[in-house]
């Protein structure tokens, strides 16, 4: 049985267990770092039209419906789902497939947060709706070798992105030009998409989209560099100084590296995700910056990443009690505002192993300085 048969059988088993007539896995074609891409995970198709759905009946019939209609050619080539249909009238065709597959009692809906009012209401007219994102979350818990390979490749692309940053960061280049060079390097290395926030200046307050600002001597460049490959995000957070870093910057950055090391020591299957954040905040708090560890200065100490599930969650903080499990991917980042230096970026992505964790990227964790 191949990986896709396993996914489908598990979905059928779970929907039958819950007494559902069928399952709809929906996507509005957007991809967010804060949410899983359920349809992409299940079908292996990266959707892009405004409405896309997989419809599964309790007896195992499965259809992939994509809008616009011309995307059905790509969908049938990329996805393992053999019944792939294109539509220019999504509502009409979705409800007609529900009727065809006899989904009339209760239907589980995955990805409902992306649904617009009219789609949700149309489904509701056909069957009782139950929100069942957890069905895919459950299936996605165990990662296949193919998924692990994708994770490793994405991590390599992140390393390539940082190399480009180091190469092109120089006095006079504009922020958006620097991002263009990083993006070029990561796309050439295979990235489908890039999530990238950065800032430059003598004292940064937050990371943002690139502006026209030209880099100057003494600038601190901070960034979260997150390529996406086959739906998988991996994030690397680093800080570079253009010129010689000040002793105080070195001292404060070392606190963050220590906080990262302490937090990584917590990572192993069975512990709550909050332990990562708590360990980080303890180090930074003891250094005198406890107030800056919480909103409005800080929101999260990392995120989970994945295609079918982002467990242990979109925000690793002291309140996140989700249990860390094998094969989860997360970034731990003590990115921190420090009054003496401004906002600094420091973080590494890891894969949770049977016993602890594995750092996914090769880029050394240190404060980088580039001669000008």
């Amino acid at each position: 049985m191949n990986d896709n048969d396993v996914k489908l059988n598990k979905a059928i088993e779970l929907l039958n267990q819950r007494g559902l007539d069928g399952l709809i896995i929906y996507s509005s074609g957007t991809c967010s770092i804060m949410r899983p891409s359920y349809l992409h995970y299940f079908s292996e198709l990266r959707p892009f039209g405004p409405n896309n759905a997989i419809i599964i009946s309790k007896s195992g019939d499965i259809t992939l419906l994509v809008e616009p209609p011309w995307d059905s050619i790509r969908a049938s080539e990329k996805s393992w789902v053999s019944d792939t249909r294109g539509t220019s009238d999504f509502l009409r065709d979705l409800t007609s497939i529900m009727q065809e597959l006899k989904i009339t009692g209760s239907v589980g809906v995955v990805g409902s947060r992306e649904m617009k009012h009219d789609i949700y209401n149309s489904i509701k007219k056909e069957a009782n709706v139950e929100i069942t994102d957890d069905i895919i979350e459950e299936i996605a818990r165990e990662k296949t070798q193919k998924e692990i390979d994708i994770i490793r490749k994405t991590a390599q692309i992140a390393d390539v992105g940082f190399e480009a940053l180091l190469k092109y960061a120089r006095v006079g280049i504009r922020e958006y030009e620097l991002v263009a060079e990083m993006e070029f390097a990561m796309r050439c290395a295979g990235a489908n998409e890039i999530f990238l926030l950065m800032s430059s200046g003598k004292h940064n307050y937050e990371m943002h989209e690139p502006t026209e600002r030209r880099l100057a001597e003494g600038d601190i460049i901070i960034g979260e560099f997150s390529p996406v490959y086959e739906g998988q995000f991996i994030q690397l957070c680093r800080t570079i100084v253009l010129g010689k870093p000040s002793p105080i910057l070195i001292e404060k950055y070392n606190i963050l590296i220590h906080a990262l090391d302490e937090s990584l020591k917590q990572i192993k299957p069975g512990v709550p995700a909050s332990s990562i954040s708590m360990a980080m905040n303890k180090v930074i708090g003891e250094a005198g910056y406890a107030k800056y560890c919480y909103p409005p200065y800080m929101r999260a100490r990392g995120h989970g990443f994945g295609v079918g599930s982002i467990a242990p969650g979109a925000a690793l903080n002291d309140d996140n009690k989700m249990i860390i499990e094998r094969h989860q991917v997360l970034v731990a980042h003590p990115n921190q505002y420090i009054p003496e230096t401004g906002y600094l970026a420091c973080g590494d992505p890891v894969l949770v192993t049977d016993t602890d964790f594995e750092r996914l990227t090769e880029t050394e964790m240190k404060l980088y300085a580039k001669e000008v």
Partner: protein
Amino acid sequence: METIQPTLRIGRTVWDKINMPEVEFQKRIDKIKQEMKKEGIDVLLLYGHAFNDYGNPCYVSNFIIRLPRGTIVVVTQDGELELMFEGSSRGVPFAKTTTWLKDVRACGDISKEIVKYLKEKDFIPSTTGFAGLRQLMPYNQFQLLFKSLDQCKIVDVNHIIRDMRMVKSQRECDQIRRSSRIVSHTFDVISDTVFSNMNERILEAHIFKAARLEGAGDIRVLIAKPLKAKWALRPVEDTAISAGDSIIIYLAVEFERYWSERIRTFIVKDSSLVKPEFETAETLYKRIMKRIKPGKTVSQFYKEAIGEIEKSHAEYIPEYGLGHGIGLNLQEPPVIAEVDTNQLKEGMCFTLRLTIKDTTIGAAMVGNTINLSKKGPEILTN
């Protein structure tokens, strides 16, 4: 055209106050308030979502969201405008550098935040205008908002802003001209580049870099190989591009919020992209363009365009349509279709596309962004 939306808008993000000064937004607001008064609206909610549908709130604020989430601008008859976006409060200072609005709030769930705001400002009960909410807002947020405003009279007033946005001001046309320049420049770069080991992904990387370095905020690329038996426009793959291939490239670029698109067909010769001879498509395209005239309905223009295609005996491929309006949204009204009864007017900007079968290269596709000016239709992406 449907394209892949980015996960984050990572291009140049600025507010150029010369290109788009505050007075431009004030004019729009004054007009909106007049329309609100005519329709008895106390408070108007302009909603936008992600990177394909940010137009409504952006039209009055210049704000564009960084993540695929929601934005609302609240317009009242007397008060200041309020901008709310879904995101962290740390993003507010940067957001304020890209908008003239003073009141900017970040929130986790925009439906809850808007209800809180309307309560604070005593707008419950009121006559509340919705623009874009029913169509674009995720259903759970829409339901919460709708229920929470059960004491309000809700009026759908999409038409107010849609009609205003359909006819562009001179400054808007200039912005579309600027994004068109980037589109044209990018095509020049890729036509002049000799690629070694040409592959679709590397080609796309070059396209992105060329456009980003010119200041593109958002970029969309689709590709097709029409010599294949089954083909369609699609995102790039890790597939080689070989000598003899014919390739259609769709490129859309957003510069300072405004979009432009262009489509061209190439053949691959050695390691370069070369423009093939397809006189039929180009001549036909010019003939269709001549039919664009202010005062005609879009429907009438559509029928005339189809008439020209039939007269030419070209085999038309209808999947990608003939085009639509373009501006703050990559796709906006009017839609060049039989059912669109809007009138063509000076100041409109739209895409005009033509796809026809070709015995040598499979299919030829031509597309441009056009401004309907006093002098007639002008191609901005030549």
